């Protein structure tokens, strides 16, 4: 079985600083992968390279076999990075959830979730609305459909942001520390929604500091440090019995 997402030789530099130093991994359809690692290790950068919000310096990213963000050059064989316009259909296939939600405050909760269906997938107003209501139900936010995002708690905003990403009918969900901007008492409601999505068999790549959650919900865990994947394996193995000293040190430190 071929992977849904395959990443080969991914590198990213900011100026002379190389943040990602050659990352390779695969995500099979239905797999949930947690990406953990110390602050500044490049987790967000790696995740954002998947949909080219950051442009990789080198490497090959394929979604369902299709090369993401790069198209063959016109003459010769030089490759060209796609423009944002060209990237739009590929990005639409990946739902992204940000640490700070980034809901659109001039739109209602319902509109936040319906607008991509309208503008990107070109559904009718009625279809988009029905889809949005369905997605809001999944994240238990139907009752606030007509509210403004500004009236919601952080946990509620993040759940709406998840519904917004789901409305894309994405092949893959990308989460960048979805709970780390939340007050502790709001973390649970968001993790519960993500767990429900995992149980539906969705394919997910999740950056998180919630180690227990990664252990229980992810199939595999990758530990990123210094721009490389230091350790990678079954979630329970990596988190309960890490092999690498750097993983051991990180997990020990994060538990205190």
């Amino acid at each position, binding site marked *: 079985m071929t992977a849904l997402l395959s990443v080969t030789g991914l590198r990213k530099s900011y100026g002379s600083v190389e943040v990602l130093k050659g990352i390779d991994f695969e995500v099979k359809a239905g797999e949930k992968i947690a990406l953990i690692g110390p602050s500044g290790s490049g987790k967000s950068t790696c995740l954002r390279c998947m949909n080219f919000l950051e442009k990789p310096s080198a490497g090959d990213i394929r979604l369902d076999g299709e090369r993401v963000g790069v198209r063959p050059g016109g003459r010769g064989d030089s490759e060209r990075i796609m423009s944002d316009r060209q990237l739009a259909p590929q*990005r639409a296939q990946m*739902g992204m959830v940000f640490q*700070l939600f*980034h809901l659109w405050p001039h739109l209602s909760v319902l509109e936040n979730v319906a607008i991509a269906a309208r503008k990107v997938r070109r559904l009718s107003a009625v279809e988009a609305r029905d889809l949005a209501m369905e997605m809001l139900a999944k994240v238990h936010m139907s009752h606030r459909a007509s509210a403004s995002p500004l009236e919601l708690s952080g946990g509620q905003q993040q759940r709406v942001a998840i519904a*917004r990403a789901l409305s894309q009918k994405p092949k893959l969900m990308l989460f960048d520390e979805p709970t780390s901007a939340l007050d502790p008492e709001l973390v649970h409601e968001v993790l519960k929604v993500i767990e429900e999505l995992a149980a539906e068999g969705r394919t997910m790549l999740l950056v998180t500091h919630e180690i227990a959650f990664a252990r229980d919900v992810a199939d595999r865990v990758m530990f990123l440090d210094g721009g490389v994947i230091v350790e990678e394996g079954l979630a329970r193995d990596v988190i309960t019995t890490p092999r690498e000293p750097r993983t051991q040190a990180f997990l020990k430190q994060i538990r205190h």
Partner: protein
Amino acid sequence: MNSLDPFLIILQGLLRGAGITAVVTFSALALGLALGFALSLFRQFSPSKLLHGLIDVYVEFFRNIPALSHLFILYFGLASLGFRLSSMGAAILGLGLIGAAVTCDIFRSGFKSLSPGQTEAALATGFTPLQTIFTILTPQAMRIALPSLGNFAVQLLKDTSVVSAIAAPEIMFYARSMVTSSFQTTLIYATAAGLYLVMSLPLMQAVRMLEIRYGRVK
């Protein structure tokens, strides 16, 4: 003889100019908003450094040279080259071009105050850059710009008084011509001032209503 008479005569005289003042204000406002918005989009979102430079030069040119110089160039300068604009045409064009420089900055600071996350969320959702600009960024930038645009509109109404210098027959044009023939200087200019105030009130009210209608986004 009724003591109100001179006032009424003055008011009647000045009102002949009020229509022109209103036409120049609204036409220059429309031109300034449309052109300024377009410039702000190119300045903010076009990748072309050359275009950025040209727009910056445009904005500096129109903001830092007195309105009167622009009006003289458009009215007398162009006429000497064979392009004869009416005094109304020159007034609207001049104030509109200056206004575009002002509103370009206002719209831009609206766009600049939005967090990059707004754009990223839109792109990640599969929006094209144009969809992102028009459905996500512009509505939010407009709300932020609204109070400054309101101030600009009121300022523009007052600034129309300079176009009397190129003989556009607006309020101050009649005020000056009446002063030379009647010597009731204070009363005439005070009445003109009152007229500007009366005209700016509905404008300010309209802006206030727009602000309430569209709310303020933090």
